[in-house]
């Protein structure tokens, strides 16, 4: 079936009233989440995972993808009005968005931001639609050695791109892999690192770990900093809808931001923040008013906003086609798929074709729904900014605690929630990113399995990774990435010392 016919079939399914309801609900929730500072899409989606026990997969996935889209778009509103990003991916938007708001042009800034998000998001979903099938075709040729090599590429990229230290990134991945080895060994059935606890024989539950790391960890980090937000939320002045001239003037910035965000999104573990940072830096360099960036230039809002929504489509590509999450949020979507007994990867497109294309098609609809909801209800959403953290954070704790309890109806899961929350807090305080840890946790078992299966195939010889062409190319890519990172760091070191 061609991509167009698959998309049309998917759209027909999306426009059934129940699916449409979840698109709108997810878009609305995502906008609320995106507006509230300190609560990213990852934490929100993690908290809602237990709802998946009651809902069929299409409803849950549609809703969560819509939340992802909504949060990425709405983060700009907080950045512009409060000079605090609503989501990590909206950090750069504040640099020009808030100065615009100070000049009484908050409405225009939000309008450009939301519109850029819509265009960036739409183009990236088109990319997802047309690139996923060719990638599936390649991935179907993968055997255990190729999968092992892909995972090593993913770990290498995540370690080198996130944070300032590749060493810390690798240690984070190792921590995740260590956690993934707890439980019964998949090949032999022997218990590993269970310390006699029957509870750990099935391993660490991804749902509990995810809610603990993202939701509880977020709350505890916030508690440590306890920043009192500036209550002077700027007024929403001026028209929200940009003029035709203003819109046309930012089109090149939107296109550049989209391309950068999309590519950044594909890189495992990088998420929206990397794309927005790079797109802002590039835009500042190439734009004719580049030297005025930071004073309130519309392109300084358009480019990063296009990039952060473009990263959504990009991040979904490796997750859906290869089972490698492109961001923290797509890592959680992977957990949701596991919960339904679905394995992300090329077989998902073959065995669950209707579900996959319904979800992809729903992204177009949710992208549009977010645009319309924001423009229609913006003054109401601005009021949400006034919710105080001392009443919001306990709600997140409440949802998280009850949520993890519903997984197995065991109090032990609540204790694990605290453990993972404290782990995430400790990692953040020590300057370690949690994304490599999550990648290691989710992919650790698959990496080990693919390695051990490769060894069985090759009767113990490592040559198998180098004699199979795709595996060889991927491992060569690992070396290129490492050398590039070393070169880049040395160059930075020389610049600093000069």
């Amino acid at each position, binding site marked *: 079936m061609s991509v167009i016919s698959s998309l049309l079939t998917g759209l027909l399914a999306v426009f059934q009233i129940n699916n449409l309801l979840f698109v709108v609900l997810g878009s609305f929730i995502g906008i609320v989440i995106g507006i509230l500072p300190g609560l990213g899409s990852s934490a929100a989606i993690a908290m809602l995972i237990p709802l998946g026990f009651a809902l069929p997969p299409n409803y849950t996935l549609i809703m969560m993808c819509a939340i992802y889209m909504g949060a990425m778009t709405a983060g700009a509103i907080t950045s512009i009005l409060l000079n605090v990003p609503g989501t990590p991916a909206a950090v750069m938007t504040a640099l020009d968005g808030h100065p615009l708001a100070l000049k009484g042009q908050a409405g225009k800034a939000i309008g450009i931001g939301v519109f850029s998000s819509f265009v960036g998001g739409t183009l990236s979903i088109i990319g997802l639609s047309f690139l996923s099938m060719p990638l599936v075709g390649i991935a179907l040729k993968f055997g255990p050695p190729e999968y092992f090599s892909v995972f090593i590429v993913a770990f290498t990229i995540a370690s080198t791109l996130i944070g300032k230290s590749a060493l810390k990134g690798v240690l984070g991945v190792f921590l995740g892999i260590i956690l993934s080895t707890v439980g019964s060994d998949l090949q032999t059935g022997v218990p590993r690192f269970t310390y006699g606890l029957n509870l750990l024989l099935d391993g660490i539950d991804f749902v509990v770990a995810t809610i603990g790391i993202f939701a509880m960890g977020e709350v505890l980090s916030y508690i440590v900093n306890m920043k009192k937000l500036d209550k002077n939320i700027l007024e929403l002045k001026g028209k929200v809808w940009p003029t035709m001239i203003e819109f046309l003037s930012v089109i090149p910035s939107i296109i550049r931001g989209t391309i950068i965000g999309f590519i950044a999104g594909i890189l495992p573990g990088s998420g929206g923040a990397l794309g927005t940072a790079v797109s802002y830096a590039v835009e500042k360099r190439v734009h004719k008013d580049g030297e005025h960036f930071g004073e309130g230039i519309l392109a300084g809002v358009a480019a990063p906003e296009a990039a952060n929504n473009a990263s959504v489509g990009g991040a979904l590509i490796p997750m859906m086609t290869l089972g490698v999450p492109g961001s923290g949020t797509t890592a959680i979507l992977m957990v949701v798929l596991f919960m339904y007994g679905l394995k992300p990867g090329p077989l998902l497109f073959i065995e669950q074709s209707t579900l996959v294309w319904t979800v992809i098609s729903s992204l177009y609809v949710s992208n549009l729904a977010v645009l319309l909801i924001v423009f229609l209800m913006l003054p109401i959403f601005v009021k949400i900014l006034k919710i105080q953290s001392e009443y919001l*954070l306990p709600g997140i704790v409440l949802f998280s605690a009850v949520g993890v309890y519903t997984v197995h109806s065991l109090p032990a899961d609540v204790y694990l929630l605290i453990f993972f929350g404290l782990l995430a807090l400790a990692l953040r305080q020590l300057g370690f990113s949690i994304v490599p840890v999550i990648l290691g946790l989710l992919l650790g078992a698959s990496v080990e399995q693919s390695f051990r299966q490769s060894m069985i195939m090759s009767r113990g010889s490592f040559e198998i990774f180098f004699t199979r062409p795709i595996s060889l190319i991927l491992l060569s890519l690992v070396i290129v990435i490492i050398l590039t990172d070393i070169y880049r760091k040395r160059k930075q070191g020389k610049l600093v010392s000069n």
Partner: protein
Amino acid sequence: MRMSKDELGSLLFFILMLFYFLSSFSIMTPSFMKVAIQPDQVPQFIAIVGMILSAKLFYDSYKKRKSIERDGTTEKKEEIVINKPALIRVFSVSLVVFLYGWLFRTIGYIISTIFLYLIVSIILGGEWKKSLIIGVFLSVLVFVLFSELIGVNLPSGWLSFIF
């Protein structure tokens, strides 16, 4: 504390990797089954490489701190600063959640959840009356969501005469 964050982090990681390595020796290697890679070999590899990388990170961080101290500059963000009020808040919230898990089945969902919300909100500086009202509202909302929609049986505890 004289140690930088990276030094402390790398030290903790080293200890973890060492503990993991030593624990891996208690994994049974099945003699009845022929496998190319035994179940303890991958963990041991991860642990050994992890120890080496932690040691490298520690060495690099130590060298950097010594060089900064020698030059007379201080990078405050690298230093470990123990914020006692923050630690107390984190510990208090964690303790409350722990007690919630421990007493959840005994006291019941409704009462324990209201108290969870109320106490955490007060710890974070909320007014008790407002917190109580929001706590009751959210508890009921979550009850409807999880009990009626998902069909999870939430314990009634002390209110078993009602539910």
